């Protein structure tokens, strides 16, 4: 018998602390698979955020950092500048990247920093127990938008991929989702492309991954993927937002 599917080596063989069904696990695995396939484990350095994926440093087999909340792109910049031949990625949630870390991600992108960002958009702050994120949908109930996000006072969700695409230093920006197997396959392709962009020294790449948070959404994992599909994808359209290697900007 031949092995069709097994765990990637870039992922350490340890249980994760994620909630049942949390697709952080899927996204971790995709990143690890890409590292394996590109054969770059030896020179890859990952930066974990503050958020549910804070312990990612225990899961990836490459060298890892735990960055201050929102500052992963700055940390990654420091690493990449110090060790230019390394492959550096940040793994960040939407509170981390799109709220407190807004300046850091925008400037890493504007600088064309040769790093890759995996941006996990689950429309909520997971780690701290389900508060409103910049990506929380209008009307969505969270711990700090108990009557549903009211755009009149709490404003509108930020479409990060689109915003980053306006920056000249951003070379490759795509939004994907892990709600279904076909989308997971696409997500992996995007992640791989993003790493390749870095390997080619072209500039900054970012993959926004729509992800579920069953715990804080108050839904089962299977209900959650459905909610993502029905609510998030319409607001956050999937696809390549910018590919400077082809000149494509959507």
């Amino acid at each position, binding site marked *: 018998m031949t092995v069709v599917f097994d765990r990637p080596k870039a992922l350490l063989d340890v249980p994760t602390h994620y909630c049942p069904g949390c697709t952080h696990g899927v996204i971790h695995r995709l990143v690890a698979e890409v590292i394996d396939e590109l054969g770059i484990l030896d020179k890859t*350095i990952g930066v974990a955020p503050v958020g549910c994926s804070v312990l990612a440093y225990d899961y990836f087999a490459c060298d890892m950092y735990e960055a201050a909340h929102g500052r992963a792109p700055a940390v990654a910049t420091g690493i990449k500048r*110090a060790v230019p031949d390394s492959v550096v990625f940040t793994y960040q949630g939407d509170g981390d990247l799109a709220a407190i870390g807004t300046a850091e991600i925008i400037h890493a992108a504007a600088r064309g920093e040769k790093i890759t960002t995996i941006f996990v958009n689950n429309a909520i702050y997971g780690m701290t127990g389900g508060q409103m994120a910049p990506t929380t949908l209008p009307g969505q109930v969270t711990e700090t938008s108990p009557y549903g996000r009211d755009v009149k006072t709490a404003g509108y969700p930020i479409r990060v991929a689109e915003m980053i695409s306006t920056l000249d230093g951003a070379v490759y920006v795509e939004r994907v989702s892990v709600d279904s197997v076909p989308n997971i396959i696409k997500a992996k392709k995007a992640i791989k492309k993003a790493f390749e962009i870095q390997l080619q020294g072209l500039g900054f790449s970012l993959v926004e991954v729509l992800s579920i948070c069953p715990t804080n959404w108050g839904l089962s994992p299977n209900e959650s993927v459905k909610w993502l599909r029905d609510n998030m994808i319409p607001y956050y359209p999937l696809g390549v937002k910018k590919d400077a290697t082809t000149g494509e900007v959507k």
Partner: protein
Amino acid sequence: MAQKVLMKGNEAIGEAAIHAGCQCFFGYPITPQTEVAAYMSRRMPKVGRVFLQAESEVAAINMVYGAAGAGVRVMTSSSSPGISLKAEGISYIAGAELPCVILNIVRGGPGLGGIQPAQSDYFQATKGGGHGDYKLVVLAPSSVQEMVDFVQDAFDIADKYRTPVMIMGDGMLGQMMEPVEFKERPKKELPEKTWAANGLRGREKHNVINSLFLKPEELEAHNNKLQEKYREIEKNEVRYELYNCDEEMDLVIVSYGTLARICKNAIKMLKKEGINVGLIRPITLWPYPVEAFDKVVDKTKHGFISVEMSCGQMVEDVQLAVNGRKPVHFYGRSGGMVPTPAEIANKIKGIVGGAK
């Protein structure tokens, strides 16, 4: 002997960092230290190193975290409000035990304050501006030459103990030119950075740069380890200068940085009037040179006076060191006002009772 050149403090420190093998510099402009970044932007690319102007002080200190974690020598520089913004990052760096050098060319505060020389970030530097139980080694040069020398020391101390080191100057020191010499110094034996997260490159276990310890037992153990390190530093790295402290004294001034030089002038003035005053100049603000006080406490008649360009910060460390054995006085100016020798001398005469 290398040749002496005239250099601005802010530029000399940049050059000294390059001499010390500083591989990366991350900064953000702020008066009165902008020349450090300007100098580095000119020089670093020429020597094949990294200069990067960050988008903010917050980003700069986190870039430092990144580069330090990768095992290279790295420096950042700012002034008071910018250092406040770095507080979280500095706490992370201390928590993750990363070596780096942080320069603070202090200006008057609080808030936007002013841009003239001050020492009002003493508490922030020595007691921990950020959260948690950590310490910065704080070096306070009083001349451009010391700035240069201390940069090298700072990198060595940082690497030896895996700890952030701050060099604290003021606008005067940053802006003034004095003759300096870049001495070639013997390389120190320093531990190899086996902990650096710069890619496995064949290493078996991945390295992790981190300050999170969710289990209280583990965080406490980590803290105890940090505290042990701090005790070690207190044992080995205390530095100070005693000036005119050999005989019986009417009073001992405690003062650091450029201000200590002004105090020396005041001491000379007083000597002419028959008043004998000594000076303790702490060079390490942390670890604080308590032993210097033990040496002179029995020789001073009216105790000590902490002379500061702040409203009374170091005076607490003086009191802690003296611990009630002698009176402790205070004289301070703030907001960019620099005391003159004459006014210091006057204040002292008020205490010791005029000429004798």
